[in-house]
């Protein structure tokens, strides 16, 4: 009974609050609109406007004055002030994002050294998942050619990022063919478009993907890659899985994702699983 009353009072209070916010937001426009309407009616009176319709002119003028004062007195903060506040908030968010990005990059440098993947052919990147796409948080490569960022976001099902994200245990090791045509075919099979393939600066021959998780939530993917054949191995993924640096990176990625406009939904999608028809091996029988 008590809960029911509280819920009702709460609903009414929220309704009243909403009404006053609505009124405050729309009051200058409503008063201005009403003034215009009264002036139109007064103008339509023709010759009688200055005699019997004079009161309409007074009412219209009063409404217009009230609209003018409401714009300054009631609607606070002003539109100008709100614009300034928004710009300031965006600047602050950008600075915080830059600080987080730098922090993750420093950790990637340390991780590359620990994993001995800081050669001229290697690269490490961290992505966070949001709304069916991956967005890059930070990247580290000793080679400046590989350190560039060309794309802002990546589709969830594309390449080694998508493979690791969708893998049951969140780990995937991808080996690509060395030949250009075979490499392109493999990339297409992994969901990359011809345009994307043409724009790649690094044609990695080995990639390792590790899904970043915080508690029970998947937040992003860490990718290690190299243009040297057979350089990326399972041992690297094992080292990453045990590394406290990666745990810290995952925490930062979760914080980074929450700073995006709709970051609270960044973990809503569940990893997809492509069904494969595995056949169990039955020992002692070899049916043809």
């Amino acid at each position, binding site marked *: 009974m008590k809960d029911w009353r509280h819920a009702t009072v709460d609903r009414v209070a929220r309704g009243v609050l909403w009404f006053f916010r609505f009124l405050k937001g729309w009051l200058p426009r409503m008063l201005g609109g009403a003034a215009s309407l009264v002036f139109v009616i007064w103008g339509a009176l023709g010759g009688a406007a200055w005699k019997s319709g004079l009161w309409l002119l007074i009412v219209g003028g009063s409404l217009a004055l009230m609209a003018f004062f409401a714009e300054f007195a009631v609607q606070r903060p002003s539109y100008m002030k709100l614009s300034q506040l928004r710009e300031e908030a965006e600047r602050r968010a950008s600075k915080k994002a830059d600080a987080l990005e730098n922090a993750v990059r420093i950790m990637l440098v340390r991780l590359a050294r620990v994993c001995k993947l800081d050669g001229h052919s290697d690269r490490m990147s961290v992505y966070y998942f949001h709304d069916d796409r991956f967005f890059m948080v930070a990247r580290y490569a000793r080679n400046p050619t590989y350190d560039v960022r060309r794309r802002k976001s990546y589709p969830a099902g594309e390449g080694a990022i998508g493979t690791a994200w969708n893998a049951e*245990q969140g780990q995937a*090791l991808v080996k690509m063919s060395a030949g250009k045509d*075979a490499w392109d075919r493999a990339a297409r099979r992994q969901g990359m478009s011809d345009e994307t393939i043409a724009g790649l600066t690094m044609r990695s021959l080995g990639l390792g993907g590790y899904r970043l998780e915080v508690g029970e939530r998947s937040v992003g993917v860490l990718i290690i890659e190299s243009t040297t054949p057979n350089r990326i191995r399972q041992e690297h993924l094992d080292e990453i899985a045990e590394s406290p640096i990666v745990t810290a990176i995952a925490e930062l990625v979760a914080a980074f994702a929450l700073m995006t406009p709709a970051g609270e939904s960044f973990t809503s999608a569940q990893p997809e699983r492509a069904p494969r028809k595995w056949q169990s*091996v039955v020992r002692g029988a070899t049916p043809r």
Partner: protein
Amino acid sequence: MTALSTRTFELVTTVTFHDLPLAIFESFVHRLAGAVREAVSDYPAVEAFLVEPGQTAGDINYGLRFKAVDPAFADDMANEILEKAVEIIAESDGGDLLEAEREESVLTLAR
């Protein structure tokens, strides 16, 4: 190394037989599955296998689920099994060995 021996991995790779006519592709996939089943019987580490048509015409997805094998040797093992399977098909046909080309591969930790 102990951890490696207790974990299960899945290796899936794309295989192309360039000399294989597309008209007999589906029946060949079925025969390859049978041959792989026979070939893996000599590999106790292999728990399951996968042979199915790939995403594009002429491609075959070939995979092995294995335990107690260092993943560094998974590719060699997959190559050996595939070669044996192709030999089994060639023996039963009495024809030439078809040349298989393995392209990209994906190794995932299954459990």
